[in-house]
């Protein structure tokens, strides 16, 4: 198998993993195994898969409350992610964070942030630490289109550009800030027009085409490694599911959702592409699916078997 073919199949496997994992999460939510807020990434998988493929182990990743995809694809074990959602002590945040606050510092996965825009300054700081300490890493910071209305978005772009810090700002533009459509929250809905006003190299990319996302991310990261300073990707995507499990979706047309899901599903687009190229036959595709299903089954078993944190340990880790 050629490296390009192998890599494309791997990206498909990653997106399928995130999709099946989250479908299982939705099912478990219905059964009451997972509680709290649960924000699914279904439809947006190509963003995490494409961007993370362009990063190395010394780079930092910081994401939003819709971060199951980033966590899984950064290598956080599926069992630790599922156990976290079950609120178990073997969860990746020891049951303190839940779905919105997955952490794995060893893999430089810095969470799971649920204050919209609040992660951007932290990402700028991670890049500042790398710069100050003479380390080569870059920091990828994911956020939604809603965050672009926050003051911290503009402050962070300015500071990163001013101090030439290697932050890859990844705007996951799914066209809705929760229930408020882009053109209803932005005076200038062209989000890619904003970062250049801070002097930040910016690219807009089709977020349903994982290979295009990866290419754009690689270009940005290579530029950042060669010339210190931030870069910005506006990744156009779409959320196929509700904002969270509590969302009745009164703000968008069912036909619009259906159109995106039928015509622009990133997994189906890559599936079709691979089939056209003759890179993945039906048997191999079925095997891929079985492998992912096994991973998800194992993750659920690990979560089910996980212990509860003893209540005596409630106050541990508040201070060092």
């Amino acid at each position, binding site marked *: 198998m050629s490296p390009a073919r192998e890599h494309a199949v791997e990206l498909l496997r990653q997106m399928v993993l995130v999709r099946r994992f989250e479908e299982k999460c939705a099912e478990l939510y219905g059964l009451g195994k997972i509680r709290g807020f649960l924000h699914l990434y279904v439809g947006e998988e190509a963003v995490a898969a494409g961007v993370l493929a362009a990063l190395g182990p010394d780079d930092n990743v910081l994401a939003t409350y819709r971060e199951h995809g980033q966590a899984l694809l950064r290598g956080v074990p599926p069992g630790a992610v599922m156990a976290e959602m079950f609120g178990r002590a073997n969860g990746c*945040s020891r049951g303190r964070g839940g779905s919105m606050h997955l*952490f794995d510092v060893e893999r430089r996965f810095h969470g799971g942030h649920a204050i919209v825009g*609040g992660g951007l300054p932290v990402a*700028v*700081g991670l890049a500042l630490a790398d710069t100050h300490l003479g380390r080569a890493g870059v920091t990828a910071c994911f956020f939604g289109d809603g965050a672009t209305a926050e003051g911290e978005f503009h402050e962070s772009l300015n*500071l990163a550009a001013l101090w030439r810090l290697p932050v890859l700002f990844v705007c996951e533009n799914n066209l809705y800030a929760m229930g408020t459509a882009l053109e209803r929250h932005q005076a200038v809905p062209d989000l890619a027009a904003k970062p250049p006003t801070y002097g930040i190299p910016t690219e807009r990319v089709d977020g349903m085409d994982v290979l295009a996302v990866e290419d754009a991310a690689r270009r940005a990261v290579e530029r950042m490694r060669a010339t210190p300073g931030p870069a910005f990707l506006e990744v156009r995507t779409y959320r196929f599911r509700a904002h969270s499990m509590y969302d009745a979706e009164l703000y968008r047309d069912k036909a619009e959702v259906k159109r995106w899901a039928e015509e622009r599903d990133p997994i189906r687009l890559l599936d079709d592409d691979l089939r056209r190229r003759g890179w993945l036959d039906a048997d191999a595709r079925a095997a891929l699916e079985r492998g992912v299903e096994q991973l998800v089954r194992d993750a659920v078993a690990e979560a089910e078997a996980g212990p509860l944190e003893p209540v005596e340990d409630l106050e541990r880790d508040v*201070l060092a």
Partner: protein
Amino acid sequence: MTRLTYREAVRGALRQILASDPRAFLLGEDVGKYGGAYAVSKGLLAELGPAKVRDTPLCESTFVGAGIGAAIGGARPIVEVMTVNFSLLALDQIVNNAATLRHMSGGQVAVPLVVRMATGAGRQLAAQHSHSLENWYAHVPGVKVVAPATPQDARDLLLAAYADPNPVFVFEHVLSYPLEGEVDETSGAAPLGRAIVRRAGTQLTIVAWGGSLPKALAAAEALAAEGVDAAVIDLRTLRPLDLEAIGASVRATRRLLVVDEGWKTGSLAGEIVAQVVETVFFDLDAPPARVCSREVPIPYAAHLEAAALPSVERIVAAGRGVVRG
């Protein structure tokens, strides 16, 4: 020992930290070329260079957040926020990130961050530069809060804040900066969480901190002239509270008065009184009292500002009331 102002003592500790630890840097608004809004960091940019002393744009939330991120990333930032009023713009980063990330990540994320800020009134700066909101920060689990009152403590508590692996907030009262005192510039970090008895006394315990300490000590002198022997405890650390030191003193004097430049409603003074009542109630001979700021935004006009704040006279009157009934 060297005679130094409080401002110079802070600067000395900053210089020592920044020069000796390659991970350290200072960042904030006008900390570099301008020399600091209260001239604390004056000269440090020229001395240590721009990687160590970083002037930020005016974006409190983001430069505090960047300090948090840099601390997570292994650097050791010291953030200066011009005044506690401005720090409200960074409250999201402080409460939702600095204080929270360690616990919320199951103990993985360390935030060894120091945030210094000016607090308090007395310079006719009006209601957007004069408040004392230390208790807002002291309310929050996951952080430590100190309020040094003397030049020596300004140095030693900053060194302690820096050495601590947690986010530590250092409140420097605007009237403290010109205070002079003998400072041992070879001293190490003071222990966090320990109050200190600044004046021994047998009939009344006055608890104060930061900019209120000189007023409490002056009031104790005035009370002594009236025949009331008051002890003065300098709290030094506002979170965690040194209830042991307060309780020991109150058990001996049987009376408590707390001076707090914050507003009385929801104040730290209220918390201290509550904890004393919960733990040493049966040792009390009189109801505890509080001298706090009047419940108004601190006004500009000198006579109004003075009337709004705890004064020596108000502390004396309250002390007299607790002891004599």
